């Protein structure tokens, strides 16, 4: 249908062909959709459609497999890095990545995450950190900021009651098995471009057998945060970046 209304010579931007037409279940304003698009674009640009296997988590992106037309394995909560290890070890020439949220990666799957990264599995972990449990309805996440209100810390997170927010990406950077650890966001066009480059760099490193990569996308959850998408982006820049500063934490790819 789009062909009928868009003249090819006028086309300046297109949905990546790996993204299908299934309507997304994500809330308007959510970062997931943008990151999905970046993943699809990078796989397509690398020409890895036939070799890519994604591992989706439990959390909002549990249905990631519905939107990007590659093979997917849906993992149990937190176990995606172990599932990815199983696939990649058996199919070393495949592009294997996980797509996980903060609850999945930094809480219930901490052990699987750290050990897969520390073994230097040639996989990429894409880590969506929005400091809240989105799917189950806005509960406290391991990455919830101090003072941040959620339905399980309605008076704000305090160290005495809830402990401190966990910086998994900083931990990942200390592990010998990782080659590339970075923190990105998708709140501006420039940030989206940077995030895409990071995902590509990580995917390429995993195909070159250089070890594990972790790409954190510090994200918004406007529904969980109870903010409008615009306000959520402001809060992200104001509060999240302060505690989760953006940039490369480790890059040994070119060493």
């Amino acid at each position: 249908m789009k062909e009928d209304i868009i003249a090819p010579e006028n086309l300046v931007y297109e949905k990546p062909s790996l993204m299908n037409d299934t309507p997304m279940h994500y809330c308007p304003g959510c970062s997931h959709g943008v990151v999905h698009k970046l993943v699809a674009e990078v796989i397509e640009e690398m020409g890895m459609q036939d070799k890519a296997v994604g591992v989706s988590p439990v959390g909002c992106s549990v249905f990631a497999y519905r939107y990007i037309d590659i093979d997917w394995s849906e993992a149990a909560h937190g176990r995606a890095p172990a599932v990815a290890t199983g696939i990649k070890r058996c199919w070393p020439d495949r592009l294997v990545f996980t797509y996980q949220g903060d609850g999945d990666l930094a809480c219930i799957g901490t052990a699987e995450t750290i050990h897969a990264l520390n073994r230097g599995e040639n996989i990429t972990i894409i880590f969506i950190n929005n400091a809240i449990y989105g799917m189950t309805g806005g509960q406290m996440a391991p990455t919830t900021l101090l003072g941040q209100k959620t339905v399980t810390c309605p008076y704000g997170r305090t160290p005495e009651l809830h402990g401190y927010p966990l910086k998994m990406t900083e931990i990942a950077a200390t592990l010998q098995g990782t080659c590339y650890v970075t923190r990105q966001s998708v709140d501006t066009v420039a940030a989206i471009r940077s995030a895409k480059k990071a995902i590509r760099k990580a995917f390429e490193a995993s195909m070159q057998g250089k070890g594990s990569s972790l790409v954190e996308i510090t994200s918004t959850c406007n529904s969980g945060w109870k903010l409008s998408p615009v306000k959520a982006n402001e809060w992200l820049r104001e509060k999240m970046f302060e505690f989760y500063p953006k940039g490369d934490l480790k890059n040994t790819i070119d060493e």
Partner: protein
Amino acid sequence: MKGNEAIAHAAIRCGCDAYFGYPITPQSEVIETLAELKPWETTGMVVLQAESEVASINMVYGAAGAGKKVFTSSSSPGVALMQEGISYMAGAELPGVFINVQRGGPGLGTIQPSQSDYFQSTRGGGNGDYYVIVLAPSSVQEMADFMDLAFTLAFKYRMPAMILSDGVIGQMMEKVVLPPVKPRRTEEEIKKECPWATFGRTPDRKPNIITSLELQPEVMEIRNQKLLKKYELVKENEVRYETSQCEDADYLFVAFGSAARISEKAMELAREDGLKVGLFRPITLWPFPDKQLEALAKGKKGVLSVEINAGQMVEDVRLATHGTVPVEHFGRLGGIVPDPEEIVNSLKENIKSGRFNG
């Protein structure tokens, strides 16, 4: 060689693609033997020590979902940890093999042999309506033979298959003839055998998705029913058992795994004492050979279920015979393996007390 070592040798020989595991007594020889044999240099089989049993089974999930012949092994507490992954594998219909070299529980329990995971093994084990095929070897030879059989059944029905062993069979050494060597399957063969597997979507097909999730109840119910249908098929086709001296017997011992070996000796001793005893050994614990047992037990004076637990299989024995014969249980606990004489004494006690017909 030891039962645990036989597993490792047999796995390599039957063309297995990968092993993921975590050490625990009394099954650590499985991963130790694999590490020593270095199959990655010969057949290309992957061997990886994971960070936990939870990780092991999820690595199996990933690799099995990608069409590979892959297995893990553990002992009771570790297998309890794996139940999450096994349930997911059942839900996602993945073929995979796992081995439980049982030790006593509950909790950390003991490292000594036990058969107290019978309930867990034969009732699915994790959450949801599902079963896994359970093979119970009673010799080192069967440890080796069941490896290939377990893979064959797992792939035939696209479901997890379990080898339920115990510390006796895992640790004992006896003569074993290793199975013939089968090469690992090529990519083309995997593609043909597992058109559902996730190892990269080629242009000729739609994306494959391995998942156990379905949020629409109506669709999920259909999925559940499909699983049940498959389980019915397994029940019809895959029941395995063995009998010994049942024809002229007045009494039956029913026992699996190491308890069956010990019961065989007890049967010899009882016959020396003039008691005509036969032995019925279920080889598949799920599906349980209920019809076969029912037929054999008809008219006997008593059936003694001999287990190294507090009385688990005895429930299936009672269900199978549904009140047509007296059924009692004998077992030792805590890691103590019953000796043949104790079993004979239990039989005599049941006769004397009138629980069994004289």
